[in-house]
């Protein structure tokens, strides 16, 4: 990929400050695409590429969005699935396609409605019983493991605490800092400030996580529209150039000697993305880090190299991530306090910051943003470097 050959010109985010229980993911997806087209003042007839975030609860978006939008002339159509890391993969794929001339205007779409009564998450919330599970898969039901993400991330956090002495208070500092940012964002679901004491007194979910370590759930959608760097200059907003994308996917081999969840794919993905962008960590003005849980932020910052492995606890607890801090992190509140749209939460906030339109929460002189996506249970990782500054257009491929 050439650094900066493609750019983001359109952004649509449905209103997630209101709880909309009855709307479908497909309706939300179409709404977000309409908002994004309006944002970049392009007619839908200009869209020739559509990429949908997979792994979602409802299949209707990937199956029906093209027809819902009435797009008969697509030359690029795909659904991509790497969990919370998918957004970065979608940006990378769209960049390649635009660079190769396979499509000229590409919409990337995330949409989900986990709070709808018929969804599997909502079934557990509303108490719809699940029957016995046959075979060995039924063991989890006996143990009390229903596949909850909190349990899986708690396992990784327990390793980190064991190895490095990381504390719940240090995780809490991440939640407090992100709520500071959310208090300044009209897009955020949770805007009232919290203290470390609020975090420590919130109810336990799966130790070490308390309620305020966990992300929100949202019915909502985000659409992002990309085009070439040249075409981007004719759009109303300042272009946001895609300067670098990296992937790193360790999976979870389950074998001795591999510390799953403590060392993540962020190491490889971050390095590759920075190399492509031809910048270093010191050039990064703000980070938007995938935050399924507070711990995800801590381990990602370590693996990117902002601090040494094991020093994430002290690193995050000196206020540097919050408003006025030296490393602004999740400046829209992230998924802990802003809105839950998987990799499209950090991606969307990075676009807003790179444009310089974040209002009260705008980071000054925000040239380069590092954006993470994390999927599975720390199994998959993507990193995107976005910038208001054009890239060299050189193809930099790193295998360091």
């Amino acid at each position, binding site marked *: 990929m050439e650094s900066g050959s493609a750019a983001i010109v359109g952004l649509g985010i449905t209103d997630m400050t209101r709880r909309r229980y009855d709307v479908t993911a497909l309706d939300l997806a179409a709404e977000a695409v309409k908002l994004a087209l309006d944002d970049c003042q392009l007619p839908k007839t200009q869209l020739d590429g559509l990429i949908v975030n997979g792994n979602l609860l409802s299949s209707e978006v990937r199956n029906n969005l093209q027809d819902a939008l009435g797009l008969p002339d697509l030359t690029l159509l795909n659904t991509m699935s790497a969990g919370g890391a998918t957004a970065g993969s979608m940006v990378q794929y769209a960049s390649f396609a635009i660079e190769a001339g396979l499509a000229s205007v590409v919409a990337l779409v995330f949409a989900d409605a986990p709070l709808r009564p018929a969804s599997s998450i909502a079934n557990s919330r509303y*108490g719809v019983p699940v029957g016995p599970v046959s*075979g060995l898969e039924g063991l*989890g039901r006996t143990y*009390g493991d229903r596949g909850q993400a909190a349990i899986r991330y*708690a396992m990784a956090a327990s390793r980190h605490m064991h190895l490095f002495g990381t504390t719940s208070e240090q995780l809490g500092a991440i939640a407090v800092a992100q709520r500071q940012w959310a208090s300044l964002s009209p897009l955020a679901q949770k805007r009232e400030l919290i203290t470390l004491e609020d975090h420590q007194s919130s109810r336990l979910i*799966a130790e070490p996580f308390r309620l305020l370590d966990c992300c929100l759930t949202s019915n909502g959608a985000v659409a992002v529209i990309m085009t070439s760097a040249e075409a981007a200059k004719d759009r109303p907003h300042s272009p946001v150039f895609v300067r670098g994308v990296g992937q790193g996917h360790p999976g979870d081999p389950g074998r001795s000697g591999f510390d799953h969840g403590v060392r993540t794919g962020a190491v490889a993905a971050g390095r590759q993305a920075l190399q492509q962008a031809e910048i270093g960590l010191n050039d990064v003005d703000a980070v938007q880090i995938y935050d399924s849980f507070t711990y995800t932020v801590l381990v990602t910052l370590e693996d990117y190299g902002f601090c040494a492995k094991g020093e994430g606890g002290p690193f995050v607890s000196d206020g540097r991530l919050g408003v006025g801090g030296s490393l602004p992190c999740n400046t829209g509140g992230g998924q802990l306090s802003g809105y839950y749209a998987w990799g499209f939460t950090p991606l969307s906030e990075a676009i807003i910051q790179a444009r310089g339109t974040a209002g009260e929460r705008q980071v000054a002189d925000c040239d380069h943003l590092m954006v993470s996506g994390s999927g599975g249970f720390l199994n998959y990782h993507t990193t995107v470097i976005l910038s208001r500054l054009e890239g060299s257009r050189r193809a930099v491929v790193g295998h360091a």
Partner: protein
Amino acid sequence: MREEQLAARPSPVPDAESEPFFEAAGRSELLIRQCPACGAWAWPVPRYATCQNCLAPGLEWKRASGAGVIHAVTRVHYVPADDDPSWVPFMLGVVELDEGVRTQIVGLLAGKDDEARVGDPVRAVFSSTRDGVHVPWFEVSGNGSRVAGNEG
């Protein structure tokens, strides 16, 4: 008391594939899978047709010692609305077995101090559900001493 609590948990339903595992659990034996080609061990969930190490097919059921250490752990304080809230808090963990392979997330039974920590030695113990299906749990071994899983 604990036996009653564990018996009240939802029972797995053995099928043809898992029958040897549950049958062995009834004899207080822990079966996991081993590759006949390279000898690598595998926890049987999720089930893969080929060895994750050498990709050979035909993994076989083999008896494991049942001994290991806690690799990761959490104490869970909530259940989904259709589960029984009287279960909480309960412990779940990942166990690194002496065979060099990790379990999926399994039920842990705390030691005498009501704790289960990363690094604590554990051994497999077996408990029957009300449906008569035997299920392995991993119990913290006292004073750090290893006890063979089949002696319980």
